[in-house]
């Protein structure tokens, strides 16, 4: 899962990034409106945290342009403007949620989780596939109730697959959603992560579809 944080205040952006990384997300930062607009238009984010008071281009305008360009990723507006007319304007511009500053980090994390879950059609904060449980709140994975230790990238690959069960997901798509933009990407490492996940969680969990990508197989639904 990859999240864009558009916030011009460096300290706050870093805090958000730290909390999001700790929750198992790949995070990109944008400190200006133009920057945010460009990233949102070109990268496939699973969620965006958008400050409205961005330099260069106002957050509300960025949001409107994304929506006009057909970008549908869930957007959480995080702003000091807490009047109801601002909230109405934000939602009408296409925001999915609205949090006023000052905020509690835990609350923002919960709302981002909820937005991503909603976007992929999951009702519960806990994703399940056979005996495997992935808790999006705590960023933990268990097999038959036993916790499994995963690295950050392994967790991101598994989380992305579990958010889209049964769908064939290409290596490129996986790469785009587990790395932030500054990471030196190498799609071959995906194979390494898949291999490690199969070792830790069972060889049948992830199926390789030749030439297309990977698919998560739920043993209970029979494939």
């Amino acid at each position, binding site marked *: 899962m990859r999240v864009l944080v558009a916030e011009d205040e460096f300290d706050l952006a870093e805090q958000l990034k730290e909390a999001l990384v700790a929750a198992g997300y790949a995070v990109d930062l944008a400190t200006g409106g133009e920057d945010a607009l460009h990233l949102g238009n070109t990268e496939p984010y699973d969620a965006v945290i958008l400050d409205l008071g961005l330099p260069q281009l106002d957050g509300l305008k960025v949001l409107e342009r994304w929506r006009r360009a057909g970008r549908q990723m869930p957007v959480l507006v995080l702003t000091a403007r807490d009047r109801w007319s601002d909230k109405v304007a934000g939602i009408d511009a296409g925001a999915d949620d609205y949090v006023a*500053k000052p905020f509690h980090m835990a609350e923002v994390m919960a709302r981002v989780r909820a937005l991503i879950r909603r976007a992929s059609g999951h009702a519960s904060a806990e994703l399940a596939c056979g005996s495997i449980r992935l808790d999006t709140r705590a960023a933990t994975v268990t097999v038959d109730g036993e916790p499994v230790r995963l690295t950050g990238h392994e967790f991101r690959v598994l989380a992305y697959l579990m958010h889209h069960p049964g769908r064939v997901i290409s290596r490129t798509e996986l790469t785009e959603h587990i790395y932030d933009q500054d990471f030196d990407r190498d799609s071959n490492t995906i194979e390494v992560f898949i291999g490690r996940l199969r070792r830790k969680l069972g060889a049948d969990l992830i199926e390789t579809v030749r030439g297309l990508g990977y698919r998560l197989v739920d043993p209970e639904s029979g494939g």
Partner: protein
Amino acid sequence: MLKALTRFRPKSLAGRLVVLASLWSLVVFACGGVALSWIFARSVSAAFDDRLDVLMDGLVGVVDVTPEGDLMVGVPPGEPRFREPFSGWYWQVEAPEQVEHSRSLWDTELPRAALEMARVIGPLGQRLRMLSRPVMIDGRIYRFRVAGDTASLTRETARFSVTVAIALAMLGAALVAGVLVQVAFGLRPLARLQAGLQKVRAGDDERLDGTFPTELEPVVAELNSLLAYNQDVIERARAHGGNLAHALKTPLSILSNEAERGDDHRLADAARRQLPRVERLITHHLARARMAGAAGSTAARVPVSPIVDELVRTLAKIYGARGVVLRRQQQIDAVFRGEREDFLEMLGNLLDNACKWATRDVEIGVEPTEGGFVVHVDDDGPGLPESERTSVIERGRRLDESVPGSGLGLAIVADHARLYRGSLVLGEGPLGGLRATLRLPGVLALPAVQPTRRVMPGRQPG
């Protein structure tokens, strides 16, 4: 005199105008009256003198002197009163050794004045005007005198003066009455100006409208720009306060996030306790500053229905994922009398609070009351114990720290409501949870209210 006049300053403009007009007409009419009387007296006395002259001619015509030198006086024509004793009309002819006089003189004589025309005292103390004329007959000088009582003259003049005074007094009174009417009519725009200002103060109008006389137009223009300037100053102060509060929020977020990351340093500990206080203070005073700014002008009229639509649409998106369903009454014909922003704030906070606590259902309804309307917001949440209902409104105390938000929402609603002379009451609702009842002054069922609309989810340019 002038000093005394200028020191006497009536309080009202009308008073000034009336007093000045009265004084002025008093002076003019008094002078006019005196002048008229004087002219009249002069013409009357000239006529009197003419008459004396005529009588003298008649007297001279009936006087004869015998060869022995005796005076023979006939009956002078034109004045029968020469024969009545002490009638006030007399004649007398003096020869060196003989005096003849009218019967009216009886046994007295006219005083011998040297002047041709003289004022003398006659018998019975009568004030007489006497014409004397020396006439030469047969080489001897005879002195002829004719006198008349001036009492009638004085009487006539006095009667004329009284008549003139009465007429002028009536004219003056009519003039003053005219001035009163004129002043009342002329100063009516001032009353209109005052009524207009009163409306502005009451918040029914934002500026002075309508046409005023040319003399007042500059004043009205100045007043309007003063009002605009005032509004501008308030708006700017409000904006500055708002900017400060907003600017503080981001650093505050950073600090409290840092403090919450759990290291047990004493500084972090203190920050964890103090930062929420700072946050609440900012929220509270920011809300109050916004209200204070809006209190100045409540001339705005806001239809309730579209605002409910906006908020329901917004909250449905925010809380929809949690399974909260918002329902609104279909027919809402109320119009809020005040700032749109304030109404949004009140209704937004009420609905937000209901959505936070609701299990599933939130309902909003609007009912007419005397002089306004009432908004009910019901939820099916846990409700609020009676003991806590007033404290949550009064102090904005946060009852449950686990539910996000400053906890000031309902207190802010109550503050706003009070500003608009309304009220917020919490109670048990028909859905089993809390019912918030917001009572507001307003207008109901205006004829030009848009038809009932269903809540349309969808984007609109903000």
